[in-house]
């Protein structure tokens, strides 16, 4: 990945190249779906029920992922403006505008493949009520049915029994019958259990990859790099042998890098001797992903932990999909996704990352598009600084909108922040 005009180049590691091949292959399968008579379900990343879709041989499309890919490839602007011209306010989440902005029937793209229109919208919404309205807009556009799964918020340390019962009841009475009707198949619990076994294997290896960043140097970047690594597990490859194989290979690759004392690949080259170990809260600005990463890489900062790598499941605190309790464990998974946690739980988690990963820098990236992630960020940062003693920096931009990404301003803030951190270290 190169961008000469912005002064950065990035040689992907093997895990990142393999991820791209995996996702591009899936996008090509999606493009063939109509010809092959396959049914397609649109759904969301946090709390997604992909194992159930596998059980019914249904294909999953994630509009969030298609939106972020459009932004990442700098192809999002026309859709954003078109959505505004059609009455969607510029204040609305950029992901939503990207997915409703194209001409009706034009569909969305992923890795250069045209995505099929949905046969069903599975609105499993976790930690974000905008999801419900988003799929209502898509229903008006595509005229297909919606099935809703409401996952209540999680305020305590573990899911409450009534919340688990509530989600399981919806799975049994609404979601599974809808998928069965769409696919024309009966629900096969054994197929679901088999998929969950593959999920748990991949989750185990993914956690080992994330936790490798406890080492010095960290062999991965747990925010920018993990954004690549997490994609198969958070989307269509959870619950599949290909997904499990990807994470087994990735784990080996990362362990080998650690054994050789190598740091992560970054736009500033491989950082074998990072100057700062940072924890990052918040999502990346996809439309300027490389430029944003480069600002940190040039300062010698590597993310050792992040919350964004937990939006599709909080696996590093012990959760695994459990084939012995399939629906209950799917409910617990959905309830425990990061953006479904209360702010105090989020503060507790991020503070524990700072301690466990021996971080000396703390970055909160707040984005205009995502209220669920960003509301309360200033107070969260205050709390994290109080609990950890590590001064942090709050940065603001957007998930997909270039016009909210002020590179000069961000560069100034990031450089000043790391200079202050370095000075404090010198004094200490």
């Amino acid at each position, binding site marked *: 990945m190169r961008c000469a005009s912005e002064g950065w180049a990035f040689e992907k590691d093997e895990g990142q190249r393999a991820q791209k091949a995996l996702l591009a292959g899936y996008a090509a399968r999606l493009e063939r779906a109509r010809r092959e008579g396959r049914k397609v379900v649109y759904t969301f990343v946090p709390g997604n029920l992909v194992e159930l879709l596998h059980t019914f041989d249904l294909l999953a499309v994630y509009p969030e992922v298609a939106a972020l890919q459009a932004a990442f490839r700098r192809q999002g602007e026309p859709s954003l403006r078109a959505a505004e011209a059609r009455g*969607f*306010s510029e*204040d609305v989440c950029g992901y*939503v505008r990207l997915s409703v902005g194209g001409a009706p029937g034009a569909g969305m793209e992923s890795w250069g493949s045209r995505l099929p229109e949905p046969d069903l919208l599975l609105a499993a919404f976790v930690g974000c*009520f905008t999801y419900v*309205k988003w799929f209502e807009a898509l229903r008006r556009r595509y005229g297909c049915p919606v099935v*809703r799964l409401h996952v209540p918020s999680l305020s305590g340390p573990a899911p409450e029994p009534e919340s688990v019962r509530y989600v399981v*009841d919806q799975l049994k009475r609404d979601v599974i019958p809808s998928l069965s009707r769409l696919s024309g198949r009966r629900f096969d619990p054994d197929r679901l259990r088999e998929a969950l076994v593959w999920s748990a294997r991949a989750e185990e290896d993914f956690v080992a990859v994330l936790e490798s960043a406890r080492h010095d140097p960290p062999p991965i970047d747990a925010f920018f790099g993990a954004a690549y690594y997490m994609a198969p597990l958070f989307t269509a490859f959870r619950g599949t042998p290909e997904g499990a194989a990807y994470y087994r290979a990735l784990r080996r690759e990362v362990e080998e890098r650690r054994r050789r004392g190598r740091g992560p690949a970054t736009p500033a080259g491989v950082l074998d001797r990072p100057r700062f170990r940072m924890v990052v809260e918040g999502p990346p600005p996809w439309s300027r992903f490389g430029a944003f990463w480069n600002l940190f890489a040039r300062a010698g900062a590597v993310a050792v932990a992040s919350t964004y790598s937990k939006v599709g499941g909080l696996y590093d605190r012990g959760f695994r999909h459990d084939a012995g309790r399939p629906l209950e464990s799917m409910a617990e998974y959905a309830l425990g996704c990061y953006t479904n946690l209360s702010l105090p739980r989020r503060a507790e988690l991020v503070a524990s990352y700072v301690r466990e990963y021996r971080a000396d820098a703390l970055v909160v990236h707040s984005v205009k598009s995502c209220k669920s992630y960003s509301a309360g*960020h200033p107070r*969260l940062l205050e709390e994290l600084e109080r609990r950890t003693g590590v001064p942090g920096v709050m940065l603001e931009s957007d998930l997909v909108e270039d016009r909210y990404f002020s590179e000069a301003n961000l560069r100034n803030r990031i450089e000043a922040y790391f200079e202050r951190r370095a000075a404090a270290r010198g004094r200490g």
Partner: protein
Amino acid sequence: MEGGGGPWAQSYMCPWPHRLGAGRAGGNLDVLDGLLAGGPCDVLRNLTGAWSLERSGSWARYVDRPLACRAGTRRAFARERVRRLAADLGLGSRPGSPERRLRRSIRLYNRLRAGLAELYRRRARDPERWPGKDVYRVARAAGAFPPEAYVDFLEEFLREGAHTAGVRGDPARIFVAGLFCEAPPAAFFETLERAGCAVVGDDVAFGPSGWGRKVPESGDPFEALAAAYGAIEGPPAWVPDEDGRRVERFIRRLARLGVDGVLLAAPCFCDPALLEEPALVSALEAAGLPWMSVRFAGGGGSLRVLEEQAEAFADAVRLRGLGV
């Protein structure tokens, strides 16, 4: 309140973080023992957490509104939540039967909702005698006084009848949609009326607008509250569109109210409200109802600009009525 949000303020959020931040900075929230917020709102959910961080040990709850597809599933979940909330509030630890006390409260709030619904009906029927600004002030007071005192006041107010002259002449009868949790100043309605618009319906105080149903006063009160809380009712932005026909029902409601035009006033940065607008606009245009869209940002906007816009809108509505 504006400008006092301090470290809570975020320019790309609705005014609630600013309001809470300003309240904190000014010490206005010190009299409170806790915070109870109802869903679905991602901002309020996080702010409830921010409150807990701010006041370690202080009681704060965000209560999810059940939004499952089936009423039975929603009711079962709501029942658990209502019982938990009752326990949190110490209902069982106070003298007297919890059920009896809860029934008394249900009766009181049924009276309150019935009174407000009557107030709104009178406004819709006769906006000249029941002007929107006064109706709004009275409705807003429901949240600021003890319910027993408020219900007595409201019922007396209705008995005495209106005294204030409302919009004179030939006002445009408008519905204000989208301001469900913004709590605009009364001057917002006054401005609209000065501009020649009679507000005959709104979703600002949505409980009294006909959405809050009567809760059964007999039987198990926990069950009754659970059924009410689990009902999919409220302003469009707050609830899922169960059958894809919600906008159609809204248009029928406008027809019942005899509305000439609609002011769309979604709060800034509120995704659920803003995402309703394109569908509403399509439906209003299909129904031949004029509409105007403004953004309302917690009192931060200029009411002078609103007045000019509303004057032009009222003129356009009147001219349309004359077939011009």
